[in-house]
């Protein structure tokens, strides 16, 4: 049974088809990597699932129900949370309060239960030292962890991770990978990533998207050898 499913989804911006006739099904507890060159439609696809855009055609189903016409906050409460490529912390609130908001509203908890949940997530993403600092003032790696923590605190069953590794050093990438592996025991992950070593190493399955269309799907090793993938990334000469 598919957990999250896109059926022939199309999204147009004027004459440009950012996502065209895109279908995929996500299995529970899976790590799905989504790769493709810049501008291929990865972030658009995420925004469609999270409800920031409405598809022009096609269906998006979560646990067998259509979520196409729901506002983002309801999709989040159903259990789909997205982290953004450009982090958007609640800048004047403390790190802890950022996570608290997610627990309060994402899981729709009362004050005392939300505090308990927020403490747990704070430990999980290892931000205890910065808990009282304004979220707008912490360094990039911490911001990425905060973004992840906030998504987790909503009680997400599916996490859409949009380039969580961008701008991290190799050591920080290693740490992030460990965190994601621990996560994947409880949640389903879809990650958009340009850091190939990361996405190829951790994904159970990889989708390759190019010009808004799916051009390949399979295990990381299968996909990496496909001529159409090599062509999309490097050009015809290298196939």
């Amino acid at each position, binding site marked *: 049974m598919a957990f999250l499913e896109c059926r022939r989804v199309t999204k147009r911006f004027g004459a440009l088809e950012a996502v065209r006739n895109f279908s995929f099904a996500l299995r529970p507890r899976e790590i799905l990597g989504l790769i493709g060159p810049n501008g291929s439609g990865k972030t658009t696809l995420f925004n469609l699932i999270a409800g920031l855009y409405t598809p022009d055609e096609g269906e998006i189903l979560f646990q067998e129900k259509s979520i196409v016409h729901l506002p983002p*906050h309801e999709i989040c409460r159903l259990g789909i949370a997205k982290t953004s490529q450009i982090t958007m912390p609640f800048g004047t*609130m403390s790190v802890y309060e950022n996570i608290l*908001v997610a627990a309060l509203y994402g899981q729709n908890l009362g004050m005392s239960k*939300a505090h308990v949940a927020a403490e747990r997530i704070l430990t999980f993403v290892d931000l205890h030292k910065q808990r009282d600092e304004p979220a707008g003032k912490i360094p990039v790696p911490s911001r990425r962890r905060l973004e992840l923590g906030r998504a987790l605190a909503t009680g997400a069953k599916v996490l859409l991770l949009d380039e969580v590794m961008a701008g991290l050093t190799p050591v920080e990438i290693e740490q992030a990978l460990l965190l994601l592996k621990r996560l994947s025991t409880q949640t389903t992950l879809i990650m958009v990533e340009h850091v190939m070593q990361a996405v190829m190493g951790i994904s159970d399955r990889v989708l390759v998207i190019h010009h808004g269309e799916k051009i390949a799907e399979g295990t990381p090793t299968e996909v990496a050898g496909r001529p159409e993938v090599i062509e999309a990334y490097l050009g015809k000469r290298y196939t």
Partner: protein
Amino acid sequence: MLMRRAGLNGILLPLLILGAILLLLPLLGIEGYRLRLLSLLFMWVALAGCWNLMSGTTGYIDFGPVAYFGVGSYCTALFMIKGGVPFLLSVFIAGWVCAALSLAIGLSTLRLQGAYFAIATFAAAEALKQVVLEGDRVLGIDFLGGAHGLTLPSPPSGIFFYYVMLFLMGLVVSLTAVIQKSKLGYGLRAIRDAEQAAELTGVPTLQIKVRAYILSSSLIGCIGGVEAYWLTYIIPDDVFNVMRTIQMVIMTLLGGMGTILGPVIGASFLILISEFLGAKFVYDYLIFVGLVIVVVILLMPQGIIGTLVKKRGKSPWLF
């Protein structure tokens, strides 16, 4: 956590003592001009506090709060004159009328952002003023009194209004404090900091913005109703005057947006300085008031409270 609680507790005791003193003042023989000045000050603290409740916490600059002040005044007046309804009940109903009106206006305007929201609320307030001004003439009836306004029944003593305004001020300040540490307050601040991220985090942004707007508007309506009875005479040009909006905004900015004590300090400062300068320079005191505002904002861009708190190195939200 503990630090945060301490921040509030630190000012709670002085506030309670101040409250007790204010409660006792009329019994200690304060009357006439001073009583009236204090009542006026309480009213403006309450009004600025209401504006802060909505705009200070969400960052949505409401430029039409005077709409509810006017509607509240007129509702209270009409209920009392035409319906013979007792004063307090009239004010209560006026609050609910403003709540219903702000639900309609809020649902449509709170989808707008930045300057567009400010313009839309400003336009709504001006439109309502025109309705009250011209309503009678257009419909050929004698109900709202047009530009001549309405006269209310003669009011009780100044002490009565002193206590009503004191109560309203206390209500608004404590509501602000309670909301700040509540689920609603966290949601509103998340909207202020990053609205799209808030929506993606499960915050029903439109819904809670409208809730804050309704709360703020209905309280402003009640205050308008009280002032109408206090002054016994209302005209559209006064109760819908855009200067009232501007004064709420300036008081809050002077004191510190989004803080509990900001509107209290800002409104007290502006009212007292206007009175003081008004007595010294009867005809041109507004020039000096303007100068003082400019200087304070230049020296303390975060507002009086905001700047003090920042110097002590704590988040301004603690107060």
